[in-house]
């Protein structure tokens, strides 16, 4: 059971507070499947990292199975991540030099599970994700879908209660993506709480509930089934993106001036913004922009 009470997460950016999360109140029961949606920079990843104990709230209370996470020290947090949390990433994050089974073993290595036992458990976890026959393949010998399945095996190897997935299908074609989602559904049905951060309504629709974040605030909670062809998130997202695009253009222009390049032509600046929006790096700029806007409001 995950209980978030009035959670704020504030970063200090250049001396100004930047609220990545504000007033987040949410309760997730065991074996629940929740999707988190929202535009870039709305605080989805921050929320995921917080629930995953990689980060601590600046304000508010986060209780995981009744334990107050904010009070725990670094090593206790590591302990919780080790035994209770499984992470799944968009870019898999497999260790390139280790084969599939060694990657799955990795959490157990750090947890001090004996060699023979962890090999057995890793093999079993790989069997669950249907990758037993590829156990000795290195990541570069596997397809994207296969890599993500190995990553899921790794995330579940320690038998966590909470599975956190950040755009798990973002780098996959639709067929492998569907396989991965079905796998996650099965794990959830098996009793794990599953939280999926996604942009994709087709992914979010599978969840029991869909939470939408904008500017670090939860703006809507709906049932996954209700996420129809038209949904509030899309509207929000579009508005937010437009607002951010304007903000970005402004920022880019400012940046040009700061660099002292007085001769910069406005079209160039617009182009820079365009490029910037395409590159992932700008997520942060967007986040900053959104937060500033929020701060002003």
């Amino acid at each position, binding site marked *: 059971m995950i209980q978030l009470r009035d959670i704020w997460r504030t970063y200090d950016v250049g001396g100004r507070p930047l609220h990545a999360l504000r007033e987040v109140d949410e309760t997730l029961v065991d074996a629940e499947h929740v999707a988190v949606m929202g535009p870039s920079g709305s605080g989805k*990843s921050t929320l995921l990292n917080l629930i995953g104990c*990689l980060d601590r709230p600046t304000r508010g209370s986060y209780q995981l199975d009744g334990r107050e996470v904010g009070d725990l020290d670094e090593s206790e947090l*590591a302990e919780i*991540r080790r035994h209770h949390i499984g992470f799944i990433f968009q870019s898999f994050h497999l260790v390139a030099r*280790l084969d599939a089974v060694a990657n799955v073993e990795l959490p157990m290595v750090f947890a001090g599970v004996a060699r023979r036992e962890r090999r057995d458990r890793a093999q079993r976890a790989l069997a669950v994700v249907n990758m037993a026959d590829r156990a000795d393949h290195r990541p570069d010998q596997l397809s994207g879908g296969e890599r993500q399945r190995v990553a899921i095996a790794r995330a579940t190897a320690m038998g966590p209660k909470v599975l956190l997935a950040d755009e798990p299908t973002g780098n996959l074609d639709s067929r492998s993506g569907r396989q991965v989602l079905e796998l996650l559904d099965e794990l959830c049905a098996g009793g794990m709480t599953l939280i999926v951060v996604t942009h994709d309504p087709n992914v979010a629709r599978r969840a029991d509930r869909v939470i939408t974040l904008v500017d670090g605030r939860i703006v809507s909670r709906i049932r996954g089934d209700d996420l129809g062809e038209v949904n509030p998130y899309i509207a929000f997202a579009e508005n937010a993106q437009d607002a951010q695009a304007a903000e970005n253009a402004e920022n880019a222009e400012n940046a040009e001036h700061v660099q002292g390049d007085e001769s910069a032509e406005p079209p160039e600046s617009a182009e820079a913004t365009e490029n910037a929006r395409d590159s992932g790096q700008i997520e942060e700029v967007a986040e900053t922009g959104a937060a500033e806007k929020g701060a002003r409001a």
Partner: protein
Amino acid sequence: MSALDVLRFAASALRGHGLRTVLSMLGVAIGVAAVIMLTALGEGARRYVTDQFASLGTNLLIVVPGRTETTGGMPGFGGTPNDLTIDDAVAVLRRVRQIRALSPVAMGNETVSFGERSRQVAILGATAEMLEVRDLSMRSGRFLPTGDWDRGTSVAVLGPKSARELFPGIEPVGQVLRIGEFRMRVIGVMAQRGVAIGVDFDDVVIVPVATAMRLFNRTSLFRLLVSVRVYTEIEAAELMIGEVLRDRHDGDEDFTIVTQDAVASAFSQIFAALTAAVVGIAAISLTVAGIGIMNVMLVSVSERTHEIGLLKAIGAHPRQILAAFLVESIMLSAAGGAVGLLTGWLAIEALLAAYPGFSAAPPAWAVAAAAGVSLGVGAIFGVLPARHATRLDPIAALRG
């Protein structure tokens, strides 16, 4: 996480970057091999010199004209207020009862020729007592005749090399050779002996001391070689000789008495200084190697930010991450150290095979220090990168 797991994990990371691992190991290996080889050479040289002194017998005293404040070194080439004469030598021999044997020595270089062959050779003026003082032995003929030291007869004793060079295929004893303007009859050839305190007894011509002084037109001896009866009487002999000579030189202390120990310890000090210099150079090279390792580890940390972020996400404790990276850098430098030790050892073996007479072995402390330092280098220069790794923000590390 067991120690074995930490080792295994670090090893897999090192294997992941084979070339980089080998190159940074090389830095440490070269440093360690240099320490081993250079200290072995220094130690070999020191041993060689020590052995030379030991072969002379430890109950030897050398009186050198001229005054030096320092002990040791090779004094006696400076100006001298009073000559050290054959009469001084006679007086010392008479009045110092601890003396077993004494030989005055004059020295110079002169062209020695026989027929068409001529050769620049060290000429040693000595007396019959030289045979006993320096423990020389003859191959053929006899040594200088005993008798009055002031009588300069025209006879010569050859070192084996000089004999070989001047009389190829001819028995030298009985032949007459020329030393400068003088004709001398060869009366003996010495057995093989080798270099001792700067004099190569193999390539030398020994003539009576009075002859040598006439030859070089000198009034002062080069030195007195004195052997005492018993080692424990060296100090007493030294005092007595000093007294006798001061007496004869109007109270001037215008001579220096060098004991075997002083010379040996002077050489020892020289070699100790050389070794210290070698160690200093080695320390610098190991420091450079250490910085190389630090650099490689920093690159490794920044290259593996994703991995470190992942390790944090799967619940690796900061201490475990620190240990993994520290062990990695220690393995790197220790492996380099091992390669260096092996290389150094092989080089020494090769040297010994090439020069069987030379005994060179790295002193135990150098081996221990090289091994210890190579481990230490990894530990010290691994701390900074390892701390970088543990302080990495997992959220930032996992992004992208």
